[in-house]
């Protein structure tokens, strides 16, 4: 069990991390996502002990590890920057933690077997005699990854482990790494600026924005019930449509009013908004896959086709709606012409509403 209590990191006037409380159970993968500068790498470095937090505690198995030097924490970290040893071969880079003082002594043969198993796992077996300078970015990243996974660690920290790999390899390695990690009992932290990646591999996901945890939950919770507008902005492909407007009272109940359209709020949301006064600024969230394009005569917000991006089986239709763009994820088949009028059918939509000032979900 890894627990973080009230972690804070201050650099001069900037708060890189603010009051972060997180826990990762045995054999659990906690994904951490957020835009660049959110504090993901800072958090990783603090857990590994290569950086001391301004405040707060890191505990492993219930005991604080503050003051325990990195080499004695039993944390296997893969740095975002790889941090490979330029003078060592691929093999020796991966073998390095197994030969470090304090590591259980392994026979030459056992060590070779362990290292080569990992190099095969990340598909760089044929490169074991090369030095890092002779590798591509993606190959270096895989060497750094195997140097972390080769260890029998108490905690694994993978800071953007797959960001420089091509789509196909990223796709196959995701599942393979997850299976490998959850077989063991060690907690894992896995970060990525790509929310889709951590939602695919993690048991739970923490969304970090500006050093603050916006939400922690299972992938399904993060997808279905983002707790903050910052979370909604990061998840989904394409991400959720977020439209600013106000709540107003109408004959049939509360409505969301946007400069280009007005929408009755579903009763469940309206009940919660009742507390917030009508006239309050809010942000409406609509998932692209829940919107359908309609004919110009249909009811629903009316806009114009801004651009159509075909992506194979489906495509992304961007519709201009006043000053905003609304994105629809639609099955292929209907040809869309730039500039033509289109309405947006909201019948299948399950809208979300966020406070326009604080950003929290209503």
């Amino acid at each position, binding site marked *: 069990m890894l627990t973080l209590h009230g972690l804070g990191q201050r650099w001069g006037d900037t708060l890189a991390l603010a009051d972060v409380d997180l826990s990762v159970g045995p054999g659990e993968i906690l994904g951490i996502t957020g835009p660049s500068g959110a504090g993901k790498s800072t958090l990783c470095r603090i857990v590994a002990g290569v950086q001391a937090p301004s405040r707060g505690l890191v505990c492993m198995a219930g005991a604080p590890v503050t003051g325990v030097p990195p080499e004695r924490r039993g944390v296997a970290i893969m740095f975002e920057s790889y941090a490979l040893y330029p003078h060592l071969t691929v093999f020796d880079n991966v073998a390095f933690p197994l030969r470090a003082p304090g590591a259980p002594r392994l026979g030459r043969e056992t060590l070779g077997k362990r290292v080569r198993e990992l190099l095969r796992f990340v598909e760089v077996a044929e490169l074991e005699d090369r030095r890092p300078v002779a590798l591509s970015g993606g190959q270096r990243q895989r060497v750094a990854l195997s140097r972390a996974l080769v260890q029998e660690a108490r905690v694994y920290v993978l800071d953007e482990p797959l960001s420089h790999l091509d*789509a196909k390899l990223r796709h196959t390695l995701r599942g393979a790494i997850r299976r490998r990690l959850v077989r063991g009992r060690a907690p894992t932290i896995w970060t990525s600026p790509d929310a889709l990646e951590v939602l*695919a591999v993690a048991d739970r996901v923490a969304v970090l924005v500006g050093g603050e945890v916006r939400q922690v939950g299972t992938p399904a919770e993060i997808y279905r019930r983002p707790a903050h507008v910052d979370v909604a902005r990061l998840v989904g492909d394409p991400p959720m449509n977020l439209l600013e407007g106000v709540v107003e009272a109408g004959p049939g109940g509360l409505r969301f009013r946007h400069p280009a359209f007005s929408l009755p709020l579903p009763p469940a949301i309206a009940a919660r908004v009742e507390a917030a006064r009508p006239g309050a600024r809010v942000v409406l969230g609509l998932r692209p896959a829940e919107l359908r394009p309609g004919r110009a005569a249909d009811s629903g917000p009316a806009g114009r086709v801004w651009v159509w*991006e*075909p*992506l*194979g089986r489906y495509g992304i239709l961007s519709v201009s709606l006043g000053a905003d763009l609304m994105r629809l994820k639609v099955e292929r088949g209907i040809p869309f012409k730039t500039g033509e009028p289109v309405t947006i059918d909201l019948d299948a939509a399950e809208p979300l509403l966020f406070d326009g000032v604080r950003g929290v979900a209503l």
Partner: protein
Amino acid sequence: MASIRIEQVWKRYGAVEAVRDLNLACPDGLLLALLGPSGCGKTSTLKMLAGIEDVSEGELYFDERPITGLAAAARNVAMVFEDYALYPHLTVAQNIAFPLEIRGRPREEIRRATNEAIALLGLEALRDTGVRLLSGGAQQRVGIGRALVRRPAVLLFDEPLSHLDGAQKSGLRAEIKRLQKDAGVTSVLVTHDQTEAMAMADRVAVMDQGVLQQVGSPDDLYDRPANLFVAQFIGEPPMNLLPGRLERRGERLVLDGMSGELALPAAATAGLAGRARTEVVVGVRSEHLWLADPAAPGVGLTGAVFFREPRGDSDVVLVEVGGPGAARLAVEVEAASRWREGDRVRVGVTDVALHVFDSTTGARV
């Protein structure tokens, strides 16, 4: 504006043949994407069009006029770079005006053209901001403005989105597409990212090892990949490829391979009877496979769930068939599915047109 034609073009670096006998065209006003992995020859092709690299053999035409012998400056092409390549000490407006300033254009023309570009890109509020203070996406918009301000005959984009993350990337992707259409400028986009190429281009040229594999609309490439390379490169998750032998079972054809027989839908095998008892590779997109309990009646491969990847709108389930470490099939199902790692499942094929490739040449059958 100009149409582009590339005729029997080769690029050699010593003994290395970076581009081999390339024939390709882009009609006036369209966007052509050059797509492929690193080393496929896409960047060499772009550089030859820009005039930064010599053509080893062959001819390039703009509007059917040969330009191979023209210096870069005489071709009226503009480039948008991966790393923006802006002047960091200048403002947005100064960066955009720069190409006209160094050409000594009249004050009034520079002012008007710069304002037009700034309006087109929606950069009015940032015009006097130093570019260092801008986000990556805004910097790249300035890069595009600087390229457009010269009214080039051809606009060349070299991996314009690769330094951006998530939302910025998909936002600017749509914006470039719209801008390119509004400006009507013939454009060539180099990218290794199939999503980018599909989303933005009118025509996509897929290259591998210096050789053009296929050129067509995004829908063509997705629906009728010409060979195994294109089949694997286009689409996400990548197309499932099942090697095996076509066998006749009564009226139907089955694929014998991957430790089991897979019944192929009738629609998929029309016209393939002559291929019975030959080795092929069958390609199936993840959305054309279905999952059921292993006890379910019907024919299909059985396997075990290796990994379930939730994607919000759908789950991609990787199924291991033919034992551990053998083939893995990606199956896309509705979210949130009930399948979990280790579950035994039956995998079937929906009755749609499949893709069949010759196992030796890789060409579409």
